[in-house]
């Protein structure tokens, strides 16, 4: 028997008519047939994450073909790095991901330290973890309810913004910046926790506990949200390794993937937490994973606060940053961002300037390769939802 609620929301389009499938198994798209429309979604579309465009070919309200276009940010950071001292790369690299800039700072710092053989003081490492987890928390606070906003449920997203601001307040105290924190730099970090910081962060975390319960009711137990996310944007398990999918998207497909556990860095091995796994691999599953991540992050932050030393050295002695020559070599460093594995491949030719810093972030795979395939046959009203569920970040693609 069909659930009465399901009955109300039942809508079964006839997908047999268009497009026809050609001999090669691919859809036959003839624009002059009048059965297809080309639509650009983006670059300034509220349903697109950041500045990028989808070139959609639609038939009725279904996507037949989608192409991702980037190039609206024109910044060329990786090239800029080749002309900057390592210390000057530090305020530049953060721009490769606006919502979560800290992962860039961390990778640059750690890569530089690895190449130069610098040992970072213990306190600085704890502060790095603190900053990275706070960054993850503020992203998730915006993103988890933000998923509902893609289908018009904006209320949770607005609540989320408030709680995110609380964390940004803490960032402002700790790092001097709200969005671009510029805190983790080669050698260490730029400041100790101010007085009373633990207590204030603790208060904020308590409020966030309540918020998570609220959005459970508002979003996860919301018929519209469920209807429009369950079964939507399904990523088959065999895509994961084929495309190199990481992070929550991989975990929602049942994969145990988390850099913090697989390749522990900083002091994550001293922290108690588990992979957050789901199996349905649809938009809903991905958001359940992120919702669990939200809880985990709050918990990790509490553990960090409990374990972190009160005082200590915040930066190792380094050579003069103005002419710091990094020994010849190469390294790949990575951390777990809110979107997945976030890595820097760094090459030094022994000079004061990096020879190459190449970013490997999840967005390139997710927003270009995976999204193009995932959108085929999707309803146009689900495009935003699917896109957001992949957590794409165009600045990270165009670097």
């Amino acid at each position: 028997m069909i659930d009465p609620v399901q009955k109300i929301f039942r809508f079964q389009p006839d997908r047999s008519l268009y497009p026809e499938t050609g001999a090669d198994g691919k859809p036959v798209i003839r624009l002059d047939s009048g059965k297809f429309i080309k639509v650009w979604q983006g670059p300034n579309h509220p349903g697109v994450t950041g500045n990028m465009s989808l070139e959609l070919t639609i038939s009725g309200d279904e996507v037949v073909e989608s192409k991702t276009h980037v190039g609206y940010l024109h910044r060329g950071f990786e090239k800029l790095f080749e002309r900057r001292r390592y210390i000057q790369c530090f305020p530049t690299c953060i721009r490769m991901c606006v919502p979560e800039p800290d992962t860039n700072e961390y990778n640059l710092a750690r890569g530089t330290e690895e190449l130069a053989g610098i040992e970072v003081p213990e306190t600085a490492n704890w502060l790095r973890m603190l900053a990275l987890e706070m960054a993850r928390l503020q992203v998730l606070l915006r993103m988890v309810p933000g998923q509902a906003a893609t289908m018009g449920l904006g209320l949770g997203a607005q609540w989320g913004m408030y709680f995110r601001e609380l964390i940004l307040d803490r960032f402002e105290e700790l790092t001097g910046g709200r969005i671009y924190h510029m805190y983790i730099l080669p050698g260490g970090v730029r400041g100790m926790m101010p007085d009373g910081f633990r207590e204030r962060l603790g208060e904020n975390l308590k409020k966030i506990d309540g918020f998570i319960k609220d959005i459970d009711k508002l979003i996860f137990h919301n018929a519209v949200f469920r209807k429009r996310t369950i079964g939507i944007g399904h990523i088959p398990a065999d895509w994961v390794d084929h495309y190199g999918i990481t992070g929550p998207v991989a975990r929602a497909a049942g994969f145990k993937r988390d850099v913090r556990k697989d390749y522990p860095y900083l002091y994550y091995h001293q922290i108690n937490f588990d992979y957050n796994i789901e199996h349905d691999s649809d938009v809903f599953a991905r958001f359940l994973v992120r919702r669990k991540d939200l809880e985990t992050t709050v918990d990790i932050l509490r553990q960090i606060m409990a374990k972190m030393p009160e005082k200590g050295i915040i930066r190792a002695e380094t050579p003069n940053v103005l002419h710091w020559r990094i020994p010849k070599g190469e390294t790949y460093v990575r951390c777990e961002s809110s979107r997945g594995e976030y890595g820097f491949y760094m090459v030094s030719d022994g000079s004061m300037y990096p020879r190459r810093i190449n970013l490997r972030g999840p967005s390139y795979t997710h927003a270009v390769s995976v999204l193009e395939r995932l959108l085929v046959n999707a309803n146009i009203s689900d495009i935003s939802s699917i896109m957001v569920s992949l957590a794409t970040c165009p600045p990270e693609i165009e670097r």
Partner: protein
Amino acid sequence: MSIKDILSPFSGWKKVFDEPVVVKDPVNDRPGAPRYRGFHRNDIATCIGCGTCETICENEAIDLVPVQGIETRDGDSGLRPRVDYGRCCWCALCVDVCTTGSLTLSNAYIWVDEDPGVYRFTPGVDDMPWQREEKGWKKPEGNYEFYSLKREPMEHLRPEERNDSFAEMVRGFSKEQAMREADRCVECGICVATCPAHMGIPEYIRAVRDDDMERGLKILYDTNPLPEICGRICTHKCETVCSIGHRGEPVSIRWLKRYIADQNPSEKYKQILETGVLDKNGKKVAIIGSGPAGLSAAHYLSLMGYECTIYEKLPKTGGMMRFGIPEYRLPYDQIDKDIDYILSLGVHIIYNTTVGKDITLDQLKRDYDAVFAATGLHQGRSTRIEGTDHRHVYQATDLLRKVTLGEEIHVGRRIVVIGGGNVAMDITRTLARLQRLKYGEVRIITTSLETEDAMPADSEEVVGSREEGATVIPGWAPRKIDIAEDEIKGLHVVQCLSLFDEKGAFNPQCNFDNHRFFEGDMIVESIGQGMDLVYLTEGIKEHLEMTPRGRIRVDDYFQSSIPWLFFGGDIIQGPDVIHGIANGHKAARGIDRFLSGTADKQQTT
């Protein structure tokens, strides 16, 4: 899905009754955090315009600009950073790297103005409301430095290793030490303006970092042909202004110079400096005195093709560098290394010849196209207190010269040295060594008018003197030498209260009630030296313009009112090796302007 999923979203309504969380006036209701990176502030009096902020800024948002009311002076470029908020990203690296700590950021959030031009401003100069704010980003405290504030320690012979020997005391840097020390320089160039010779300091320090000793040597010789000597005994005025010295210890510029010179073997100088073959222009210049100014002039003139002949009254080159500075500070082989190279450029030298006695200036005028006189200050001045005519009252410079020449000198059992300059310390430490060799103990009192903090001697010299057994008692004025039965018994002194009067003239004031007696059987005076210009004949003096203070008047190129006659070195600028080198270089250019006819003001007499 269940009915619960329909109803539960309505729980959102409960928030209707919550307090709103929006801040209405973010500026006043919620000021920026104490560490917030807001707008730039600069403490203009502390800032020295070193420009390190400009160097580190990855957005080229900072330009150093001249500012009204701030003059360029030693240790201050006279420029101040101007920030362009069209480019700045508020990273505050400029604050963290600031050498003086003058640059900070306020915690102001908002700045709105209709005129886009105002967003390019000079913090601290253009009056901004946040300039006086306390809060905002400052350089983090603790172990957070972008360069080391600590000097690489220089190894010295320990007092017991050196106190009875004339072996060189300062060991010099190893490669690793030199690299670490060179790393501390931020290449601001503040020191260059203060160095009398305007040496390319940041450039040669960079050569140390690059481990390119040949390039380093070339840079040294651009402005200074006596690097081994200067690398040891230069008064390093550059270091007193080094921007790193504002919050830490200045870069050891002098030792780095020595390091470069030490690394290059003398056999390779000609090849490195590309001076194997020099074209001659057929003109001849006579130089009187082979001190730093004379040698420097000879060097640069030779490179320009002039044939130079130096007249030296002593049997060896170097002037005060050899005869005034003890060997433990400046070993003779290092003097020879520098000077032999200059002589190898084809400079002739005639020893044991005093101009004015063995040959006249007029004769030089006939034989040469120009004459450069750098005869120095060799005549010790006397305090002229009662008893200074005793045979055991000596002049420090005379004693130092005799020691260098290997002559026997009188060494008393108890010696009192009068003077607070480096020469006083030199003679103190020389006599201390001789006393230790002769009597096995040191009994020297060195006393100066100046109090300890005002003594002109380098503090390391004072410390060294004490370490080697001498007693240094500053702040006393000599009154009378006590003599009984034709033997010196000691020196009467009174407390010196001040040296200068309100007008700044030298006029010591003493407290005659506070009196001391320093026992001794030998007194050495070291209160400065005077010049001996006997070689200036009446005919020449007649045409020679003098300054109101009785010095010979020279122009910027050290040319006197008699066009073929140039003067330089200590007689013009007072006792200092590096000034002498700088004068010699400038005079060489002056002579070239004069002889090649390129000078804009050509006159004849």
